[in-house]
């Protein structure tokens, strides 16, 4: 869905998100988080999947409905340096979060994009133009290779022998299981890896502490007596993009 905004002075960067109000009245009550999909001349677009009540209401909105928006929020993906080759991995609507990143560095990024089936793969033509190489995969094989993005990843590195010697930087957004595997791969091969997380959010600005994600101790500057307990960071302001090495899986 596309939103136009009267005062869109500060555009969102790849990886940042917005909090959108869904429906009128107080039910549903909270705003919903959606990544920047792509900026437009007079606003921005988001890409969303129908999950529950809020997104269902969004689907039923008539064009021209005004929605409350808070953002852009959160930390964007760190940009690749001149010497780095971006390797972007998206699962499902995770594409939303990384799409504008791929477009921002035309013909540079290797793009791996997977979903349940063909009709869940969006903007494939734009991606083909924007990416240096695009590998599609679907669980049912209806489009691209049958399998997961991880299969594509292994295929990619095996077909591009030299790839792992290049200075790679990985970006990933998708289901948690996928993020875990990508992170493990990245750490195993010593690749700088950034992943975008999801968590249930209330405020989106770091005030309510709803969006906790467990991180490794050494990374935390906090002193505390309860050292048996995990340490948490906020997905909304410390993230949603995290260095894979930070996360305590």
């Amino acid at each position, binding site marked *: 869905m596309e939103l136009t905004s009267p005062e869109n002075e500060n555009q969102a960067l790849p990886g940042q998100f917005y909090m959108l*109000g869904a429906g009128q009245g*107080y*039910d*549903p*009550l*909270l*705003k919903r988080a959606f990544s920047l999909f792509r900026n437009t001349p007079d606003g921005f677009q988001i890409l969303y999947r129908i999950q529950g009540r809020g997104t269902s209401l969004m689907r039923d909105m008539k064009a021209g409905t005004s929605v*409350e928006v*808070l953002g852009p929020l959160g930390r964007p993906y760190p940009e690749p340096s001149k010497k780095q080759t971006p390797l972007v991995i998206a699962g499902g609507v995770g594409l939303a979060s990384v799409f504008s990143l791929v477009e921002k560095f035309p013909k540079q990024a290797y793009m791996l994009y997977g979903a349940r089936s063909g009709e869940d793969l969006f903007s494939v033509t734009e991606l083909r133009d924007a990416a240096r190489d695009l590998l599609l995969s679907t669980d049912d094989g209806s489009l691209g290779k049958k399998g997961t993005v991880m299969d594509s990843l292994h295929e990619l590195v095996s077909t591009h022998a030299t790839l792992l010697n290049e200075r790679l930087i990985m970006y990933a957004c998708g289901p948690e299981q996928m993020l875990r595997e990508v992170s493990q791969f990245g750490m195993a091969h010593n690749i700088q890896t950034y992943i975008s997380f999801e*968590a*249930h*959010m*209330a*405020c*989106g*600005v*770091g*005030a*309510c*502490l*709803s*969006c*906790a*994600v*467990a991180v490794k101790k050494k990374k935390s500057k*906090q*002193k*505390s*007596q*309860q050292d048996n*307990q*995990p*340490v*948490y960071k906020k997905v909304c*302001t410390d993230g949603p993009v995290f260095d894979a090495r930070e996360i305590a899986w």
Partner: protein
Amino acid sequence: MSRLDVQIGSMHLKAPVVSASGCFGYGEEYSEFIDLNRLGAVVVKGISLKPMHGNPPPRICETPCGMLNSIGLQNVGLKVFLKEKLPFLRTFDTKVIVNILGNSLKDYEKLARSLDDAGVDAIELNVSCPNVRKGGIWFGTDRKMLGKLVSAIKASLQHSVLITKLSPTVSDIGEFAQIAEDAGSDAVSLINTIPGMAIDINTRKPKIRNIIGGLSGPAIKPIALRMVHETYKSVTIPIIGMGGIMNASDALEFIIAGATAVAVGTANFINPLTTAEIIDGISNFMKQENLTALNDLTGSLHDG
């Protein structure tokens, strides 16, 4: 010209609207979205002696016209608060109220003393947090302990105003307000969240990892409003009313029911400008009703 300023004990608020603890971080989180100078006071997230990491996620879930939370009192701890958070708040022309939580009377006393020394304007005793088994909840529903706690803290304060935040999980809130007043509390604030639950029927797991969370938002407004009115009828100290306040009309309901000031919690999440808009709304209402002072409104319910 109508005046919006109110008095909470010896503390003077230029506006009758403050942030609710835990819903406004340490102030700084919202400082780029709203001018903190507009608020009567910033009430910060509950502070404990040592930092607390909080509960494992999921920590919140949405419910009809409300939300459940079980943050687990995550906070930076007293030391970091004094060193890193308080100085920032001091740069604004607004009062600073610190919500404190301990597991023992000693904890509460230590917290109160150091914050009093640090010159915070008021201390809000969180004796009603539903998220930790020991500590809070226990003081909040035990008559004797509450009285003991309040008088002990009152004795350990030099300058700071003492506000006791009451637990809603009692049959007679007026009685507990009375206990706080008798023990020397300068004001009471209510209500805290009401313990609640939600279940994912497919996984058969609680939607909140801690099983029970605190319910807040418009859903609890009628309950909060009733408790504020009951409290108003049983004590003479000022009341800071809260619970589901989303707009000026809601805030005015609480004031008419007996609140001297109101706190806004969950509404900040939906619209960070809520507090400022409520202050403007109250001001307009007073003009329209030709009221000069807010006191004329407080407790003005026609319940004949």
